[in-house]
């Protein structure tokens, strides 16, 4: 938290985040209501969203959130990979971990850094949700109550989505020696991983359910926000637990 809000580098990252979200909110989310409800766009949007299975989003009373959700559900996982790429790496490289591990266990270190990153991403999610709610309320103050309810639900959904992504970066931080390398490995993991799984499936002719190891596997099924139940949260939660357990086991054996 202090690293983000009280260091030059952190504040710059925050400024970049705010700039990106200003553009998203101003140009896309802010004009969502007029776009979605315009006669010319309505039929096209219904056709397009219907084809994607997202027509339920058009029925939301706060249309700003429909656009917000479509952007945020892909933005925050990518942002988490980038923003949480240095949970331990630089401290390990510099030797600062040696001071810390004389005063805390490695489990506390992993859990503390993970929860810290999760808290930061949660705060940023809440800020963007709040900004969207304000935009909707400015358009129509009667939407404020509805905005808060939908915003809280989406914040929770987004939090569940980003949890395994942050846990993946925890694991990579133990394996690699720099934040940059952690991002590179994460990119390769998400870029080449599915190709390798497809190749294995093609070669062996069997489904090994290896795609379950990829965080974000449930995003496509929750995108429409239609007919969601508890089962959609199980995969990301299991992935998070598995990745954090792996991080702890690796960290226990790692030389620091």
């Amino acid at each position, binding site marked *: 938290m202090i690293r983000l809000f009280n260091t030059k580098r952190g504040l710059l990252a925050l400024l970049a985040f705010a700039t990106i979200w200003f553009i998203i909110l101003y140009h896309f989310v802010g004009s969502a209501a007029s776009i979605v409800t315009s006669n010319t766009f309505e039929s096209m949007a219904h056709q397009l969203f219907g084809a994607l299975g997202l027509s339920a989003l058009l029925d939301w009373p706060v249309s700003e959130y429909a656009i917000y959700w479509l952007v945020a559900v892909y933005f925050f996982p990518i942002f988490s990979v980038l923003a949480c790429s240095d949970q331990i790496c630089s401290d390990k490289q*510099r030797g600062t971990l040696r*001071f*810390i591990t*004389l005063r*805390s266990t490695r489990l506390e270190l992993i859990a503390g850094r993970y929860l810290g990153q999760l808290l930061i991403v949660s705060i940023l999610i809440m800020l963007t949700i709040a900004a969207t709610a304000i935009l909707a309320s400015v358009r129509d103050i009667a939407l404020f109550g509805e905005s808060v309810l939908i915003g809280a639900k989406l914040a929770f959904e987004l939090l569940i989505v980003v949890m395994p992504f942050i846990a993946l970066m925890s694991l990579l931080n133990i394996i690699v020696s720099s934040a940059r390398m952690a991002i590179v490995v994460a990119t390769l993991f998400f870029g080449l991983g599915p190709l390798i799984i497809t190749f294995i499936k093609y070669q062996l002719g069997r489904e090994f359910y290896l795609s379950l190891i990829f965080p974000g596997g449930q995003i496509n099924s929750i995108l429409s926000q239609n007919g969601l139940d508890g089962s959609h949260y199980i995969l990301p939660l299991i992935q998070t637990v598995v990745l954090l357990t792996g991080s702890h086991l690796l960290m226990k054996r790692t030389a620091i």
Partner: protein
Amino acid sequence: MSLIIEVENVCKRYGDKQALQGVNFSLNQGAPVALVGPNGAGKTTLFSLLCGYIQPTSGSIKILGHKPANSALFGRLSALPQDAQLDPRFSIARQLTFYARLQGMSKKLALKDTQRVIAMVGLEDAANSRPSELSHGMRKRATIAQALLGAPEIVMLDEATAGLDPINAKEIRAIVAEHANDVNFILSSHDLSELERLCDQVLYLESGQLKQHTDLNSKESNRFITLRMKQEYPEFLPSLMAMQGVTHVTVTQDREYLLSIDTQQNTVAIEIALLTMLDKNSWLYAQLINGKTLENQLF
């Protein structure tokens, strides 16, 4: 005296390289202990094992009755690991306060203790500076300060005075000497005169093996006198050999003589006779040492 460190048959291997091999020793509570050895002897590996930064390939280590990195050692064991740096983005005071809080201190106590250790290493004016704004020596002193937070029972300092100017190195030695009665220091350094001045015991590592575990205050060392002369005198060596009670004289290095003393003789009487001889002949000496120098004991 209670046992503080117990190392049993410890081996550490990095791939094909055997960094430590069958190291055995135990240390009791007491005066500072020196860890000495040539580069690559395994000193830093042993430090890292004792601190729990790495795991031994085989063997066991007990620190104050616990395995290294056990939470029971937090606040009781502290260390200055070689080349470890504080975070360059935060002030020294802030980081030390954070470490003190991790050790379980209240916020108020952590701030107070931070001021205490910063004053001990003479960094009061730089307390609110970030490490990146300080010189190498000041950064080193800041990392020494973190090792002194709270009331540790064991403090391990790996090359604590390396890179420090003579005045600051002297101050660090003074801190060690001042607290040696309350804290068990383990020091690693290439400066043998520094270790000789501060330590009573020496662990000598070579090629990953513990070659010697020497007690500098043993009675054995009383059978020797080391004399360093300021100049070379042709008649000096024969005169030394002719002295009563001196059984053997070795020229250990340029203008340095190691006198072996007859166990039946009173060492003080020989020292007085030696000084009288030097005065009578107007031979200038630089140093008279009771016993062997650490260098002569080890090499």
